[in-house]
């Protein structure tokens, strides 16, 4: 196999470019830059003759290169065997409808911001519409209790609830230890060691427990829900369900939202308990507060309203996480890129919304549960 070559004949009559060798992708690609440079240089002279008789093999890559060097048409003086002419004719035919090229405008950043605002608005409407569907579904279930998807609810309770217990308890225990250790050091300076029970009790039960669980569950179960619904969209399973007359919101979204709304308060209670145990252990080691004293003091210094606030937060957060996860899952377009970006969006939005909701809770309950 001869490499592609380009040479000039020195006949007095006219300058001729003689091409020889194999002009195929495999042969051209190692010396592409050199060849295209040489070709461009040849075409500057106006009346150059081209001699292609010596080309052994020509594919569309080689032909496209030449075609471009010729400026999209046959040169006036060209020696071209018929079997090669066919290749050029194909390119000529393809060139009839020109490629579409989209440029970049200088106002693109404005359009980008508008797009973001529009996406926010669209998602807000989407979530509201989904919420409306869920209310309608709940109404339907009140009138037809037989349609309740018990199986799906219990499966989701197990997956999003029971299976989340190990990881939340581990994280909560460690956070409890760290929190207790750091606060004990500070309180010890003022001789206020015993207040560690108040601090941990209020802080964990009312605030830290629910938020910690929400972050963990959004990352764990929220992403799983989005990905599951997203893949079902990609593989048209949701459409299959719809054609069988199965409501997607009733069978897919409702059980997830309900299960997480039930499971989250329970996980919150469990997680808060674990964090308190961690704090109790650290307090005993650090400032020598006995377990008995800790357990005895806790109910006295933490009004029971805090527990209810914590559980209510868990319920609301669970509801929000599942609702957002399902919304983003149902928005997935049938391609891989959309699936991954929507899963990310679901988790990030869920955590942001949970923290916003937590702020709302803090303001709404500012006079409850604190002496």
């Amino acid at each position: 196999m001869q490499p592609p070559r380009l040479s000039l004949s020195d006949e007095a009559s006219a300058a001729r470019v003689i091409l020889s060798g194999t002009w195929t992708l495999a042969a051209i690609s190692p010396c592409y830059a050199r060849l295209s440079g040489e070709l461009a240089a040849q075409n500057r002279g106006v009346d150059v003759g081209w001699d292609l008789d010596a080309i052994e093999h020509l594919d569309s890559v080689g032909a496209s290169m030449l075609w471009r060097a010729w400026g999209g048409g046959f040169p006036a003086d060209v020696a071209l065997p018929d079997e090669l002419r066919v290749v050029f004719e194909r390119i000529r035919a393809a060139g009839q409808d020109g490629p579409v090229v989209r440029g970049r405008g200088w106002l693109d950043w404005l359009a980008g911001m508008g797009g973001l605002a529009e996406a926010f608005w669209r998602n807000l409407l989407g979530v509201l519409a989904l919420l409306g569907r869920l209310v309608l579904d709940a109404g339907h279930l009140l009138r037809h209790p037989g349609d309740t998807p018990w199986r799906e609810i219990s499966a989701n309770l197990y997956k999003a609830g029971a299976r989340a217990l190990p990881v939340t308890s581990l994280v909560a225990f460690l956070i409890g230890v760290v929190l207790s250790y750091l606060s004990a050091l500070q309180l010890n300076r003022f001789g206020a060691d015993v207040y560690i029970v108040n601090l941990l009790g209020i802080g964990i039960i009312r605030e830290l427990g629910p938020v910690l669980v929400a972050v963990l569950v959004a990352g764990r179960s929220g992403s799983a829900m989005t990905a599951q619904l997203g893949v079902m969209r990609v593989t048209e399973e949701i459409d299959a369900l719809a054609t069988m007359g199965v409501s997607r919101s009733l069978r897919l979204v409702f059980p997830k939202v309900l299960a997480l709304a039930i499971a989250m308060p329970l996980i919150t209670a469990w997680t808060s308990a674990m964090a308190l145990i961690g704090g109790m252990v650290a307090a005993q080691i650090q400032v020598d507060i006995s377990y008995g004293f800790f357990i005895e003091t806790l109910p006295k210094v933490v009004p029971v309203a805090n527990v209810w606030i914590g559980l209510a937060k868990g319920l609301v957060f669970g509801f929000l996480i599942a609702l957002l996860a399902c919304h983003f899952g149902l928005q997935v377009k049938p391609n891989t890129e959309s699936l991954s970006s929507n899963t990310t969006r679901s988790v990030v939005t869920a955590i942001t919304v949970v923290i916003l909701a937590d702020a709302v809770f803090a303001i709404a309950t500012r006079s409850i549960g604190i002496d």
Partner: protein
Amino acid sequence: MADSPIIEARGLGTCFGQKKWVLRGLDLVVERGEVVALVGGSGSGKTTLLRHINGLMRPSEGSVRLFGQPLFSGDRLADRALRRRFGMLFQQGALFSALTVFQNVAFPMRELRLLDEDLIRDLVHLKLAQVELKASDAELMPSELSGGMIKRVGLARALALEPELLLLDEPTAGLDPDRSEAFVKLIKQLHAELGLTVVLVTHDLDTLAALAAHVAVLAERRILAYGPLDEIMQIDHPFINGFFGAQRSRIALERGRAVP
């Protein structure tokens, strides 16, 4: 180089699990410029054989050589260069769903990292024209394409690097008869124009008759028979009788031959 066959499989064997042989002692030689159809019952190992030829699966025993070179030489660059010499059309198209039609066809060319964007654009539009797609289709996403268009784009992508060998997995499955006939015509025309070697797996007798000069019958874990269609049909074997024997297949074969 011209002497070595395009595909040469010797003593090929595939074993799933402990003792479940799907292929055993299989020999297949495909010469340059041939169009070969692989036929066989379901589960006879057609897909497995195709996966050995395109290098997705390493055989348990025996070897496959493409263009006279081993598929698994151990040298990364040589293996990659060899895989750029054939194109594969998957049954479902296997288009990259996050990329547009244009980007899908341009992908293998960009992977070469040698060509400039202008030439790539020209080439992509040439490939799309070759498979009879419009330039305006280039900006569509795979999810917006019909089944026939997906196959065409898949074919354009398989042809992107000017392959010497084209592998087709059920090229006409899932297309209606009209489109299937048009697609067969297209492949036939490309074969004539580009001098490709084509290996296809098919169930469809119309496709088989219209395209394939040679048929390889896969049964009893090996190539049971290999040769021109007319010779194959003379062989007395339960599978061949079942596949080609019925009256309907005679009709299909006649019709297939009529395709210009």
